[in-house]
């Protein structure tokens, strides 16, 4: 036995408390898993919350079909190693069925199309709580969101009429058809997540670390060139660069950053010194000043 005195950090303690409340208050929770660092951190926190029992909810991946192959490979390995249940639903199926229309052209992205597939999947399984890795420091509309964020049966967020959240008391009462989006790491910053990954030695997909990649530059962003899902004009030149990804989303809207941070210690150092925010590399947020708020009103995660 260790002789140490346990003193769980405030952020970790809060996240674990929230995860336990979800399982206690809801019938059918699910963890929205993208294969990115934030949802991987959530998986570790869930392990801790319920250990030595298994994580008592499945993972759900809404697959845009435009994921980095490294992320999918990582996802499948993690699920196998931890013996988790994984549900995958494909945006492509909705496109094929004519339910959503794919964007075309230079700035086309499947990011927004995920919403429809997510809402369908919530209805298909009857999920009443969807746990996600969103953080309030990411974006100014997210900074307004509650930890238990109620969505109506259209998946809509009513940002002007949110339930007050007081002390540690989380009100999970909802009507049939509604669901709650739950954000256990709301109060973590990007740096907090990286420091946690470092401290816990959590494995993450290789694209987070510096590697050589065929890329091209558009609008000051560095894009992956070998992936046919990323639109490229013929005059946009391909060059090999040493890059890494700071955030991992749909390939069509996630840009790389020049970096030689090849391990977690260097990544933490780099983030500490960075003068650009994480979302600075997400083109979908730049569509308008209220891009995120509008997407969330429509049921986006």
């Amino acid at each position, binding site marked *: 036995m260790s002789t140490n*005195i*346990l003193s769980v950090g*405030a952020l970790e303690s809060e996240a674990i408390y929230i995860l336990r409340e979800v399982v206690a208050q809801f019938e059918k929770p699910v963890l929205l898993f993208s294969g990115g660092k934030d949802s991987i951190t959530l998986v570790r926190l869930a392990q801790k919350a319920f250990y030595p029992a298994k994580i008592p909810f499945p993972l759900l991946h809404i697959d845009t079909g435009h994921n980095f192959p490294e992320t999918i490979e990582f996802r499948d390995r993690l699920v196998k190693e931890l013996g988790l249940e994984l549900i995958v639903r494909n945006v492509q199926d909705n496109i094929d069925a004519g339910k959503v229309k794919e964007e075309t052209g230079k700035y086309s992205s499947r990011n927004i199309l995920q919403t429809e597939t997510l809402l369908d999947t919530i209805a298909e399984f009857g999920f009443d709580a969807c746990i996600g890795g969103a953080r309030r*420091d990411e974006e100014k*509309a997210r900074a307004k969101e509650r930890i238990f964020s109620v969505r109506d049966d259209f998946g809509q967020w009513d940002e002007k009429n949110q339930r007050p959240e*007081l002390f540690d*008391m989380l009100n999970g009462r909802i009507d049939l058809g509604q669901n709650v989006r739950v954000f256990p790491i709301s109060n973590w910053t990007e740096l907090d997540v990286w420091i946690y990954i470092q401290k816990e030695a959590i494995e993450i997909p290789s694209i987070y670390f510096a590697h050589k990649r065929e890329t091209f530059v558009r609008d000051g962003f560095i894009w992956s060139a070998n992936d046919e899902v990323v639109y490229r004009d013929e005059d946009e030149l391909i060059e090999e660069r040493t890059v890494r990804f700071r955030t991992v989303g749909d390939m069509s809207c996630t840009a790389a950053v020049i970096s030689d941070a090849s391990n977690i210690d260097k990544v933490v150092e780099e983030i500490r010194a960075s003068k650009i925010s994480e979302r600075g590399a997400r083109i979908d947020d730049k569509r308008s*000043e209220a891009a995120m708020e509008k997407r969330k009103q429509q049921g986006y995660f």
Partner: protein
Amino acid sequence: MNVLKLATAGSVDDGKSTLIGRILYDTNSLTEDKLQAIEEKSQQRGFDYLDFSLATDGLVAEREQGITIDVAHIYFSTPKTSFIIADTPGHIEYTRNMVTGASNSQASIILVDARNGVVEQTYRHFFINNLLQVKEVVVAVNKMDLVDYSEEKFNQVKGEIKYLAEKSDYKIQRITFIPISALHGDNVVNSSSNIDWYSGPSILEYLEGLNLEEKENYAQARFPVQSVIRPKTDEFHDYRGYAGKLYGGNFAVGDRVTVLPSAIESTIKSINFFDQEFNEVKSGSSFTLTLEDDVNVSRGDMIVKSGEIPHMTKQLEATICWMDKSPLKASDKYYIKHGVNDAQVKIISLDNIINTDFSGRDENPSKLSINEIGKVQLKLSKPLLVDRYKENKSNGAFILIDPKTNNTSGVGFIN
């Protein structure tokens, strides 16, 4: 790293957004892309200054109206401390959001415009900080540049707040006065050369100097059981762990404990966190514990040290801050959530409404409307294990939920 949660409050145009922007700017917490966005938007709107509220007012409706409607959470850190600021609205109609922000904060900053001095909204901000027993309050007297950095003006505000503080019931609150100019950065992060008569800390120096170790550490340990962990695997076939978060005090292996409400005694066998075991655990930590005896424990039960038993009661007297458009009236029924425990509750009587300007109370009102604060008597459908709010904040507060709408309609503080 230490995390300090802090709330800001101020009336409209007292310069709250400017203050937060200034803190972020002077601590180099604004990234280039965010700063660029603020510059562009400020220009587009024809401002000849940087409008930092564009960084904190995240909703379209807020930017349209130029006011803060809901709490925004803002993060920054210095080498010593990580800060979480709950930026709460100043408007009277958003009092509930102010309470929301303050409920999770260890310190508060109340902004006062040096030109106007203490106004009605200041009473309200101050009152709420008193009600919630926020221990550390900074009164930032802003816009000192517009009153020629006058010490007299500053002392006037100080006197008015001290006069208010004398009327409050919460006496151990520490109030610190700092003269600032958020626009020019005087005494926000850096000390000011414009205010030579002031020798105290800047706001950031003050916050960094707070003793975070002392926390809200109450003598009596309260461990509400969130869930029972029963893996039933080969390896952990007989494992029965009680998961939760400890509020106050500490627990150690070998401690004699009482499980409530059954009042059965046992001894702490192990304290587990993930795959490790510990001898002792501090307040504020989430963990799992096991007991020596096979006791029937379920969610909502509370494990406490034997001899440190909370009140078990079906009657409560509480001060309520009402947050719902539909008012509270005597004989109404709600759900009560107290920690992780739920019950039904009936309002027996509404005794009074408390004026937030400390001018007294209205006796025997017919209803408690949104943003009002009053004293009520409640009857519960089952006994709850409670402390007075002043003895244990987490175990002395509750929320009321409207069964018709599921809304969180009010927050109560047990007297």
